[in-house]
């Protein structure tokens, strides 16, 4: 159902009155980011697939479309979302794009933003605007479609999004190999440097997990040289993506996400680690102070996110250096001059 008019009306009214809005799709990622005070702008009813032609590898969907529904439609055509987004509940497509989170396939296939070809959005002034398109290559105008990915609804409400999709591999298998933690990063770097049909590479002590995708004979040939055992199914990657592994569920410590150079060593922080994306995305369960973690991440040339376990007003995302934050504020001003869209969800003054 197309609710564009009603949504536009609500945003326009909020703009006139200068009242903040809290954008809600499926509510599955409400825990992610900082809390927003504001009237709910409900996207859940604005749903449906607008256009899908498998041979074009492009699908256009309304923001409130359930992610699971889209994935089913794609699967029926032998296709998939290459960025393998986490659901964390009844996720919507708009929410998945706005959150900007990508699953284990990311280093091999690309991130959310890499698959965003175009968006139709509602700005903070209540204007309906379209950027990007439904074609693979497009450099007309600034790429405002990709910028929406990961902006947590603070720049615009995603009414529609066109996503590039990928064919599903004929076969996927999961292998694992016992490995001491000290060797994990080196082993992953070595594997990432080879032309292998990899689609997942993670380390959850004491095992290194590999996912191979492709033709059966290719997988067989590759697997035989890796000295690893087959697992009966591929459930590990789903449990990793949805954070259902014991690493995520056991214990009370906060969950942090750290992103930095894949081969760089873990910083000296207390807690337990799980490595994904061949080492480029690391999860840390810790009781360390946020400042210490942000500082360690910055020193390593990366960044940290307090993923779970924070309070509503805690800093969640890596503090930005002042010149960079100035650009963020100016960009927010361009899209949403009265700061009515999810204010504070990402950073306090944004």
């Amino acid at each position, binding site marked *: 159902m197309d609710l564009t008019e009603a949504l536009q009306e609500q945003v326009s009214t909020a703009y006139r009155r200068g009242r903040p809005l809290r954008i809600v799709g499926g509510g599955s990622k409400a825990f992610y980011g900082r809390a927003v005070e504001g009237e709910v702008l409900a996207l859940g009813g604005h749903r449906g697939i607008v256009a899908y032609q498998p041979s074009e590898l492009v699908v256009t969907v309304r923001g409130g479309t359930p992610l699971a529904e889209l994935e089913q439609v794609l699967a029926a055509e032998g296709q998939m979302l290459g960025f393998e987004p986490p659901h964390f509940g009844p996720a919507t497509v708009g929410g998945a794009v706005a959150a900007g989170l990508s699953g284990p396939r990311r280093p091999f296939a690309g991130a959310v933003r890499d698959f965003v070809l175009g968006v139709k959005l509602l700005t903070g002034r209540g204007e309906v605007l379209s950027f990007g398109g439904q*074609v693979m290559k497009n*450099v007309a105008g600034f*790429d*405002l479609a990709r910028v929406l990915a990961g902006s947590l609804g603070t720049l615009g409400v995603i009414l529609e999004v066109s996503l590039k999709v990928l064919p599903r591999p004929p076969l996927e298998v999961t292998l694992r190999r016992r490995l001491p933690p000290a060797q994990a990063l080196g082993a992953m770097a070595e594997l990432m440097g080879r032309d292998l049909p990899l689609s997942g590479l993670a380390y959850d002590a004491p095992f290194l997990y590999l996912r191979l995708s492709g033709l059966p004979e290719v997988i067989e040939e590759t697997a035989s040289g890796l000295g690893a055992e087959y697992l009966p199914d591929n459930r590990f990657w789903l449990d990793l993506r949805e954070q259902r592994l014991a690493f995520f569920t056991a214990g009370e410590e906060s969950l942090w996400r750290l992103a930095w150079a894949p081969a760089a060593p873990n910083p000296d922080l207390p807690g337990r680690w799980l490595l994904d994306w061949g080492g480029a995305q690391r999860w840390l369960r810790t009781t360390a102070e946020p400042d210490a973690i942000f500082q360690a991440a910055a020193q390593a040339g990366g960044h940290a996110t307090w993923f779970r376990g924070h309070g509503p007003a805690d800093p969640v995302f890596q503090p930005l250096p002042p010149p960079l934050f100035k650009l*963020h504020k100016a960009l927010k001003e361009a899209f949403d001059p009265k700061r009515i869209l999810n204010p504070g969800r990402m950073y306090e003054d944004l």
Partner: protein
Amino acid sequence: MTRRDAVIRRLQAIVPDEAILRQPEELKPYECDGLTAYRRVPWLVVLPEHEAQLVRILKLCRDEKLPLVVRGAGTGLSGGALPLEEGLLVSLARFDRILELDPVGRTARVQPGVRNLAISEAACPHGLYYAPDPSSQIACSIGGNVAENAGGIHCLKYGLTVHNVIGLRCLTLDGEAVTLGSAGLDGPGYDLLALVHGSEGLLAVVTEVTVRLLPLPGCTRTLLAAFPTVAAAADAVAAVIEAGLIPAAMEMMDRPAILAVEDYLQAGYPREAAALVICELDGPEAQVEAEAAAARCQFERLGAFRVQVARDEAERQRFWQGRKSAFPAIGRITPDYYCMDGTIPRHRVAEVLAGIARLADKYGLRVANVFHAGDGNLHPLIMYDAAAGELEKVEQLGREILDLCVRVGGTITGEHGVGVEKLDSMCRQFGAGELRLFHAVKRAFDPTGLLNPGKAVPTLARCAELGGMHVHRGRLPHPELARF
């Protein structure tokens, strides 16, 4: 003392005198980029060598309210580096060092003036390469690739520049350095890394680029398929993708292009073909062999009367040489040609090529097509004679071709950028609201509007003057199209 002299004097305090070009013969080589139809002798050219110098030049520009254009290797194809009548042309040609190559982390941190191909050459001994390969890769600089979000024949599988750069160091016009992205695969905050890609030098000045390197593919197979009709070739391209294959490259040429190439270098292309498809697969050997067989099967099923798989590297090179020489081959048979660049949905290729042929007839001009079929990125080459005063007619035909691309749900530029060339066509693709937001984003980065002014995003007044924008009650042009 003129303003120019005053600026020269201030520049002399920043860079050595020989890094300031001011004589007509020194300025002339900078009068255009790869799009030679637009030329303007620069007011002044400066070639800084260090970021500290660049910071001071930016501050000078800001203080003097002096606009500037930053230029790389000058291979751009839309006039994005066209100099200003009164403003600086800053060449980053001397920012040409590879600062760091990390074979374990598979990244290279390079200065913007480094040539695209030089990165792969440096990475090759480690079994790695940089995937995006614009046709000009031997000469074009990585900074320019970022500014234009350059593509190439392999971006069907490996993506554009934006998909292969993980970090940028940029200077804002205030001379402040910002780092976008991170050493990981993403950065904190908004994805400004993506925004700067393809921003055509309007937002910030890039001083360092960190690219992702990929393992060299274990095996490569290249197929050449000849079709009796353009429609059959277009269907075959769609069929390959529908069969679940993502070739590394899938290129197409029509008959005028085939004939020009054959006359030029005898690549062995069948002259009787209405269209040729070159399809390249790469990856682990067993995978590539199976995919090549599957692609061949699709080509034959859709009517290819000849399908050849390159038997060795020499033959593979020959297949590609024809494709890569298509532009000079066309150059031999016409005094001038104008290369267009638009992208359309793949399933409209046959229809759009027929439309282009009709438009060409209407204007009495010849058009050859050589393009990235897998991406739907067309490159019609309009042949003409500038000396006969045909340029205006060519530009009109070009605009009509781009209108056609927009009408079928495509875009006015796939990889060359808007520059000065396509400002008018921007008025066709975007409405007033979109253009206003583009301007607002420009102001967010560059409040004084001094960075590459007059490029990429047209003013609303320009669109209104052209009559290209009929905004009625906030509705966009062509409201009947589900276009975004």
